[in-house]
């Protein structure tokens, strides 16, 4: 979602976001319950097939899935050690790794094939029954802004780090945090004004 969306026209791109969200939730539960390595292997094959259907090449999927592999490189041996290095230990660790991999890959697939607008609309549909108490539009706006904040704050951190380096300053974490927080607050203020100017402050 956060600028990760890959435009496309595949079945997965065209499927309603709410349906995808529902299927994702069901799949997560199923994956969590799997206890048979063969079934899990089957699920991995299905995930790979879904990526193919969506037309997502491996290089595009890698940034989403790569980091979890790093975690597994450490987590799997720890699991095996805890289980005393037995065969069951290896099986448990392998199952855990496979489940995580499938879950992360599915979530990434949702992200890669669904625009934020579609997610917001799905939220609004979900919140409809509660519209007497919750303003779905406002919740949607809040979610959009939260998503927008991620690259914005990342950029601010980047600039502050650069400025520090340019001045040859090392300094503490506080010396980094203060300008980042101050600039983030200024940005929040400016975004609020821009929203008002676009007539979306209500």
């Amino acid at each position, binding site marked *: *979602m*956060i*600028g990760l*969306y890959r*435009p496309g026209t595949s079945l997965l791109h065209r499927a309603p976001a709410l349906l995808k969200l529902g299927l994702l939730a069901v799949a997560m539960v199923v994956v969590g319950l799997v206890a048979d390595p063969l079934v899990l292997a089957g699920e991995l094959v299905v995930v790979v097939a879904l990526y193919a259907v969506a037309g997502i090449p491996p290089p595009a999927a890698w940034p989403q899935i790569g980091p979890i592999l790093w975690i597994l490189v450490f987590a799997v041996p720890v699991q095996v050690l805890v289980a005393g290095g037995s065969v069951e230990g290896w099986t448990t660790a392998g199952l855990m790794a496979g489940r995580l991999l499938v879950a992360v890959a599915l979530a990434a697939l949702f992200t890669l094939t669904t*625009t*934020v*607008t579609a997610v917001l609309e799905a939220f609004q549909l979900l919140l409809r029954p509660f519209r007497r108490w919750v303003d779905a*539009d406002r919740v949607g706006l809040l979610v*959009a*802004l939260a*998503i*927008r904040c991620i*690259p*914005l704050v990342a*950029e601010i951190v980047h600039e502050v780090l650069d400025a520090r380096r340019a001045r040859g300053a090392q300094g503490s974490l506080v010396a980094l945090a203060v300008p980042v927080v101050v600039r983030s607050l200024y*940005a929040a203020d*400016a*975004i609020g*004004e*821009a*929203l*008002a*100017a*676009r*007539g*979306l402050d*209500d």
Partner: protein
Amino acid sequence: MSVSAAGIRFEAVSHGFDDQPVLRGIDLHLTERRIGIVGANGSGKSTLARMINGLVTPTSGTVTVNGLDVRRQAKLVRREVGFIFTNPDNQIVMPTVQEDVAFTLRRRGLTPDEIEARTIEALERFGLTALADRPAHRLSGGQKQLLALAAVLVAGPSIVVADEPTTLLDARNTRLITGLLVSLTQQVIVVTHDLEVLDGFDRVIVIDEGRVVADDAPSVALSAYLALLS
């Protein structure tokens, strides 16, 4: 609408931030199609520009836009006035270019199809079609300002106010954005330090220390401004 109600009218407008006077006794009636506002840093230009769509409410005096009192009818006024900021980053809300333009049209009682059609048209007009699905926050500075223009103009305002829209841009993008602003059918009010921009303008207002010190055709007003600098 009566003739005298049209345009933007400042009547005895003064403003202070924390008791610090920033604008004093401003009386203006802005009806020309192309109006420039110039002045030193801190002279009060942004404060003046922001009063036009109610981002700043004057301490005293009134501002009206096409007869609407900005203080009391800010929401209606903001549908008339599109505002372009210096830093387009702050104007981006949605992750992709097309979504950000479409975002402006929310809550206007349009169908999804109408929103899409209007959005596509605006992207086309500002040369953003090829970037429609790109992450908005990764565009270049010039492209971001183009996006800001598209996102504001898709709503069809009758007035566009731009506060130093090219200050963060290079020469080429400055020319691009300026060219687009000048080509608009809307009434355009630009705050700028880029005096070349004001060549074909109808009127230039010079602000100094919170007062209007010159208000004339560009050539006359700008020589007054340059005299002020020396």
